[in-house]
């Protein structure tokens, strides 16, 4: 009986093999039988959905190509030197983007410097230390920060932060850290430091909520394993949580950086808008985004407009690269788990 290569045979168990239908089909059956296969509808629906999905590629390609097209004039006139030249003279048609690059980088890194430790602290507090009933309200509050429009931050900064910087924080920094050379010159309240602070406040919720998600994704067994070795809570967080999620945290920080690089309105309102490279953080500056916001609509002359669009192109490419790297890092940790940056 152990014939494993049994030839397939047709089993017929019931003698009434052929059933002749005698009853008229019910109205329901008649209707369903008459219904078409819906292949056409299915195919076209899938095609439309795919088209909409591909429109996202189209949007990115379109932005890229139109920015290149419209900045051709400036690309041809200045070449790569555009990004290393300091001149910004609309009257004589001489343009260089270095002051804006400097301003953008300086304010963004200043913002990260302030925001990252705070965001990590908040994330650690929320995931590891916070008593349960407080967790909900505090994360809701930090996410509320993300819902406030940029222009409202700017408004608040102009009327509250700027006077505060001018009268309290600025003089204090000058007295204590003036020797470093970062806090010199006349302090008007507007400048790169103020811009950095408002940026820090704006990117905090992004970094902290993403970091929180990433730290929550660390399995509890990791925590218990470290605790079982007799570690204190901090050692558990450092070894069991932070070390496991460091790539994701770096990704979250880079997403915050991407936001900071492109943030426009609030920065424009408090940075002072002066194309100059200055070591002092009290000095007014200019960023890539804010020069576009300020000068684009009154740009006269094709070269001027084209130079501004080239700045936009640079901003687009830099943020795309930063975001792409950041996304890959966050994905590597959360494995495609929902990213909750709105």
């Amino acid at each position, binding site marked *: 009986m152990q014939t494993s290569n049994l030839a397939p045979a047709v089993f017929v168990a019931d003698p009434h093999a052929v059933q002749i239908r005698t009853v008229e089909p019910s109205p329901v059956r008649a209707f369903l039988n008459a219904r078409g296969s819906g292949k056409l509808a299915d195919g076209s629906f899938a095609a439309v959905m795919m088209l909409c999905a591909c429109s996202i590629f189209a949007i990115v390609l379109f932005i890229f190509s139109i920015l290149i*097209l419209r900045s051709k004039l400036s690309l041809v006139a200045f070449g790569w030197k555009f990004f290393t030249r300091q001149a910004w003279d609309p009257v004589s048609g001489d343009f260089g983007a270095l002051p804006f690059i400097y301003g953008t980088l300086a304010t963004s890194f200043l913002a990260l410097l302030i925001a990252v430790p705070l965001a*990590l602290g908040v994330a650690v507090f929320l995931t590891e230390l916070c008593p349960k009933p407080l967790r909900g309200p505090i994360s809701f509050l930090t996410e509320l920060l993300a819902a406030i429009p940029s222009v409202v931050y700017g408004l608040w900064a102009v009327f509250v932060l700027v006077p505060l910087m001018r009268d309290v924080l600025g003089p204090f920094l000058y007295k204590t850290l003036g020797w470093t050379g970062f806090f010199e010159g006349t302090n008007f309240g507007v400048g790169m430091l103020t811009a950095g602070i408002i940026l820090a406040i704006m990117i905090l919720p992004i970094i902290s909520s993403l970091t929180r998600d990433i730290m929550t994704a660390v399995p509890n067994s990791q925590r218990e394993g470290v605790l079982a070795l007799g570690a204190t809570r901090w050692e558990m967080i450092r070894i069991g949580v932070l070390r496991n999620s460091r790539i994701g945290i770096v990704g979250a920080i880079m997403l915050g950086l991407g936001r900071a690089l492109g943030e426009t309105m609030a920065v424009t309102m408090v940075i002072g808008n002066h194309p100059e490279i200055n070591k002092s953080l009290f000095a007014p500056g200019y960023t890539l985004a804010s020069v576009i916001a300020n000068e684009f609509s009154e740009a006269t002359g094709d070269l001027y407009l084209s130079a501004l669009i080239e700045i936009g192109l640079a901003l*687009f490419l830099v943020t795309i690269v930063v975001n792409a790297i950041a996304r890959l890092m966050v994905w590597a940790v959360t494995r495609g788990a929902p990213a909750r940056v709105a």
Partner: protein
Amino acid sequence: MSYQPIHQPPPMDFRSKSMRLNTLRRSVMNHLITALSILATLLVIAPLVAILAYLIYKGASSLNLAFFTHIPAPVGEPGGGMANSIVGSGIILGLSSLMGVPIGIAAGVYLAEFGRGTLLANAVRFTADVLNGVPSIVMGIAIYSLVVMQQKHFSALAGGVALAIMMVPTITRTTEEMLATVPHAIREAALGLGVPKWRTAISVSLRTASPGIITGCMLAFARVAGETAPLLFTAFGNQFWSFKLNEPIAALPLQIFVYAISPYDEWHRLAWAGALVLIVLIMVSVTLVRIVANRGVLKGAS
């Protein structure tokens, strides 16, 4: 079976001086970090409370009926309001939702229902996430180059297109996430009944995920409702009433920006009032839709 260890390590003595110091150092570190993280949380919550409190204080004291019924007064004249900006914002946002919501949801449906696991879907998902991080000002100049340069004038339509493009990636990703939470068994139930795939996607998957998708759309809406930068060179702003789609139109965030950087106290007052109205509009619309969406679901549904 007697087993003799070759080398017997000395037992750990937790009372030795070095051990006690080590324990002390570790526990001090532990408390220090705890204190620092609490401090960080307080430092983060402080500006939020400060901003909201100041905004409510300044905004509420500046609000009056005229704000909602009048258009801006000329420079130097007291009074005036932002009625045209509120309506303008409504028109621009309506336009952008009309374009952005269907495309975003459709793209999300593709990712979750048709393209699961394919290379194309992964590429779309990644591009959407990256597009989400493109600065809004860049959208502004891109749409300026496309629409405004062609039409030769600023328009409400251009503003709507710019905001629509910003809504798409957010809506796509939320839709996909929400559809992914719909159990596969439910789709199989519908397919097993001979329901075509397109009908299954709409009437079963999307319908089951609808509360989450509506919330996601509202969040995208709230995000672009406060956007100023992409409107600077598209909608441009307008001091008067305008209902035409191919003319410059006022928008609340734009008007707040213009008034905030102006030198007039009267305009500052209006800027605060506008900011409060904007925030309240955003928060109320988000909460309202959440409540309505939740009520729409039948009792006992999981």
